């Protein structure tokens, strides 16, 4: 039997689900999707707090749920570590006793020492006697993590564990979780709507929308090479356009597409036949701004140009919207550091040159049935 956790859930209502995912021991799987996409529902079903209409859940070869065989192991017997969004600590018990409650299957004599060890591991030594209300948000989160880990669970479930703390604390907790996970031997499933968080912490990414798992894979790959337009939009890719395939140049490992009269060279993707209509997407990190004072060789790669129609400062960066081939067509979006924008004299109305890096252009089947805004 395979190790780790394998989940397949299906139901029509009350919350529709059609989710398949798996996570190996020691790996972090991020479940991402917009609010209401069913992320927490999947997590609750894994913990047995909710019974899905049909499906199976297997953990380390143990069957926790199988609708066909009528298996539905009780939550208390599933050995899950669950960190709830608002931590759900026992408010009347100290940090130590919160953790000790998760250790009831151990001999009484061992419980306190084990609880102290786990609390020390999440850097809470010295605060064991405090009740949750006397701890900061970050400290409460650590108690919740300690309580979840104390039982040595077969799977660790984290439900938006960073959403209730301030930014500085969140950055620190990210680092701590990244450190902690090196020692964890169980699969970790992290629910989040924050893609940067997923990119930072996860080994694998699963995009969920309306209860359906749309794409599963390496986080960077999912975020730069989505399978469908729907995934592209869910992972926040804004540069989504339609084009026709001209042909493939296998010698140079390139596919040629035609977009608004430009011949664009893109990474070789032979799955799309010449003549086919495709949707293409480019992450903002693969759009290069041409420097006005010092032209470089890179400018020969898929050059396009157009006037800046919006120039929005966002702290240290500036978000640019560029009209390519006319103001009535969907524009290109890119973000550049504020100093780059300043040095190049970029402002609304200024004509700029851009290179669309071939390696970053990803082709998808032309599918505009699910897109609210038609890419052109």
């Amino acid at each position, binding site marked *: 039997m395979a190790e780790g956790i394998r989940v397949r859930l299906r139901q029509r209502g009350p919350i529709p689900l059609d989710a398949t995912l798996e996570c190996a021991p020691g790996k972090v799987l991020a479940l991402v999707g917009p609010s209401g996409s069913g992320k927490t529902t999947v997590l609750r079903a894994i913990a047995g*707090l909710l019974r899905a209409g049909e499906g199976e859940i297997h953990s380390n070869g143990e069957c926790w749920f199988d609708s066909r065989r009528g298996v539905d192991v009780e939550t208390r017997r599933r050995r899950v570590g669950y960190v*709830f969004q608002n931590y759900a600590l026992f408010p*009347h018990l100290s940090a130590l006793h919160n953790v000790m409650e998760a250790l*009831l299957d151990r001999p009484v004599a061992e419980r306190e020492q084990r609880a102290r060890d786990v609390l020390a591991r999440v850097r809470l030594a010295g605060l064991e006697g405090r*009740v949750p*209300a006397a701890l900061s948000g970050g400290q409460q989160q650590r108690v919740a993590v300690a*309580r979840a880990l104390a039982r040595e669970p077969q799977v660790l479930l984290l439900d938006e564990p960073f959403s209730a703390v301030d930014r500085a604390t969140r950055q620190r907790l990210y680092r701590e979780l990244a450190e902690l996970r090196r020692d964890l031997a169980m699969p970790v499933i992290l629910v989040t709507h924050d893609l940067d968080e997923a990119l930072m912490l996860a080994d694998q990414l699963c995009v969920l929308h309306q209860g359906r798992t749309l794409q599963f894979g390496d986080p960077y790959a999912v975020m730069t090479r989505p399978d469908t337009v729907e995934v592209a939009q869910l992972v926040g890719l804004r540069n989504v356009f339609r084009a026709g395939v001209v042909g493939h140049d296998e010698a140079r490992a390139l596919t040629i597409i035609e977009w608004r009269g430009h011949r664009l060279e893109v990474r070789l993707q032979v799955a799309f036949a010449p003549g086919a209509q495709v949707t293409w997407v480019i992450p903002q990190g693969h759009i290069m701004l041409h420097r006005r004072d010092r032209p470089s060789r890179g400018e020969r790669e898929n050059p396009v140009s157009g006037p800046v129609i919006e120039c929005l400062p966002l702290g240290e960066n500036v978000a640019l919207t560029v009209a390519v081939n006319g103001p009535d067509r969907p524009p290109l979006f890119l973000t550049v550091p504020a100093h780059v924008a300043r040095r190049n004299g970029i402002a609304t109305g200024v004509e700029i040159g851009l290179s669309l890096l071939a390696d970053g252009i990803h082709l998808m089947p032309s599918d505009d049935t699910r897109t609210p805004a038609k890419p052109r």
Partner: protein
Amino acid sequence: MDWSALTLSLKLAGWTVLILLPLGIWAGHALAAYQFRGKAWVEALMALPLVLPPTVLGYYLLVAMGGASPVGQFYESIFGKPLVFSFEGLLLASVIFNIPFAIQPMQRGFEAIAPEVRDAAACCGLSRWRTLWRIELPLAWPGILSAVVLTFAHTLGEFGVVLMVGGSIPGETKTVAIAIYDRVQAFDTAGAGVMSAVLLLISLLAIGAAYFTNARSRIRRHG
């Protein structure tokens, strides 16, 4: 001062609390934790003694427990004495008219516990009993305490139902509230005054103690 009436009232209040405490915890917990068909009707039925005139409730209890009723006949066939106008009958009536005072505060107490806390207990591997004992009861404690105090104080002061079901048999069903009424009827205002003052003091002490304990547990929990 009618000591036997006071003792009887305290005994009645004590037994009522003792019977309603486990019953209220069970019912309050069930009503807070589970959804079921007809729940609103069950809650409405249990709240009825709050709005019904005590004499009306007393009348129905008298009819339901009287010698002509199946309940009264069953009781008499076992214990050889009538249920009405006895301490046991009075206790049964007292338990029934105190249901809302006992169950509602406990239900509110259990409802105040965040559902995720129960979920967390299950994820920690706690059994249902352990969850109730270690998590839910301590968290619902203010509600339970309110229920105990309300039931106790309300039983001490109940008049209409006691008079209808129990009559006024000294040492058996004559509670302090009835004794006060008797004294006033006999123009013994001094005696009625002393007993009223004692009742006032006991009720105040009970409610004061409840508020004090609740405030202290809140301070402890919130640092």
